[in-house]
Structure formats: C-alpha cells, structure tokens
C-alpha cells in the first residue's frame, strides 16, 4: 500500500492534489477518505487537481466519476481540474467521457466554479429583498 493522498480543507471546500502515480488501492482509499471528510466537515465542494497525473485509465476515471457521484449524494459538488491535453485525448479515445463530472482548466477556475453557486443564490435573494423594500 502506498502513501495516502492528502486532503486539504479551505473554507467549505476540500482540495486534493494528486501528485503521485496512483495505484488502484490508493485511488480507492482516496474515494473513501473523501466521503468521510465531506460528512465530517460538511464541505460543499471538492476540487481534485489531476495536473500531476500522466495518465487517466479506466480505473482512475471510474474513481473520479464515483467521487463526483458520492459527493453529490452528500450534498457537495466535485470539480476535476488540471487535466493534461494528452490525457484528455487518450481518455476520450479509450472510451471514457467522465459524464457527470464537472471539469475546469486549473485549481483557480475550479474554486471559482464552486464559489458563485452559494454567492449567486445569496445575491438573488438579496436583490429580491431589496426590490420588495423599494415598493
């Protein structure tokens, strides 16, 4: 068994940066660790940075799709970020589409994708309240 992948918490978001060549048991461990951390911390978002991954094969692809599905059930959103172009080309040819998994080009865009979801809902409510008051 190789070392576990560290999970960082930033506000209500969990950030995972995969920097090693993932072996199958480590990928499964990460999936379990993330589910546990989402529940324990009440995190609303998960950003998985795969810029360090040289390949995404069917096993890792399935792990990413599972994490997205599990976190959705636990009321959190997952964004996979940093996929290398050669990895994207290969994955599609392999037959993996990562349907149901949101993606962004880098960590910054991934975090931005998660943040407005709460903020914009809040601003809509505020705007509605302001409008009522002005009448």
């Amino acid at each position: 068994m190789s070392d576990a992948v560290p999970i960082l918490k930033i506000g209500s978001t969990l950030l995972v940066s995969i920097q090693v060549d993932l072996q199958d048991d480590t990928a499964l461990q990460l999936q379990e660790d993330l589910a546990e951390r989402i529940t324990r911390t009440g995190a609303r978002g998960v950003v998985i940075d795969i810029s360090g991954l040289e390949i995404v094969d069917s096993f890792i692809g399935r792990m990413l799709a599972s994490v997205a599905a599990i976190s959705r059930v636990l009321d959190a959103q997952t964004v996979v970020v940093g996929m290398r172009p050669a990895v994207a080309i290969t994955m599609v040819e392999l037959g993996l589409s990562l349907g149901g998994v949101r993606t962004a080009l880098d960590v910054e865009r991934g975090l931005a994708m998660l943040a407005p979801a709460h903020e914009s809902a809040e601003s809509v409510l505020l705007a509605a309240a302001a409008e009522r008051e002005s009448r």
Partner: protein
Amino acid sequence: MTTAPSATATERLEVRADSDVVRVRQLVRTVAQQARLSLVDQTKLVTAASELARNTLVYGGGGEVEVELVADGRRSGVRAVFSDEGPGIADLDLALTDGWTSGNGLGLGLSGSRRLVEQFSIDTAPGAGTRVEIVTWSR
C-alpha cells in the same frame, strides 16, 4: 550502441500486485521516450499498458510483462507483451466489446486499449491463459 534492428534488451516485470501495475506504466513510459514517441502516443501507449497489466493481475491471476524497444530500419517503436496462465477468454469477440465485463470493471480494458495502440494481437483459449501483444511506432 549500434542501431541494429531490435537489438536492445527486453525488460521483464512480474505483475502480482497493484504496485506492479504502476511499475509497468513507468517502464513503458521510459521505453516510449527512448523510441521517441510523441507525447500523445506515449500517453496512449502507457494507458493501454496500464489497462492490460491490470487485466493480467485481476483476470489472469497475475503474470508477466515484457517490454522492448524495437526498430524496423526506418522507425523505432515499443512492443509490450502481457501474459498470464489464468483461465483464458472463452468468447473473445464478446471480451472485445465496449462495456462488456466479466468482473466489475467498466469493460473498456481490452476494447479501449486496442484503440490506443497501432498493433494489437491476442492469443487465448479457455484454460490456456492469455497473451496480448501491442506495438506502437514512432511517426
């Protein structure tokens, strides 16, 4: 070193655990770089090798992988052979169908890896193990 065709040594790795699948990926990557494959072709080949090494481990009950730098005079390439003494594949057409799996995978291992390499051949029979050979050439 001279440039005699396919003169380089064959590297052999046992596949008995998850960590061996990672080792196979790393070896194939190294040889793919020696063969001067493009980054996309390297990535495709390594991904195919990962799928096939996992098949060797999960369905074949373990086995071995041979990786070799090959040359045909004009181009260089990588040949990898995955062999196991497992139960073999009874219905090869079915096993090569996208989405079909005898285990709990996605059913993309064999069919998908075939799309990722230039040459793909498979030799298997019930009770006789499985041998898959793949080759990708530099452009």
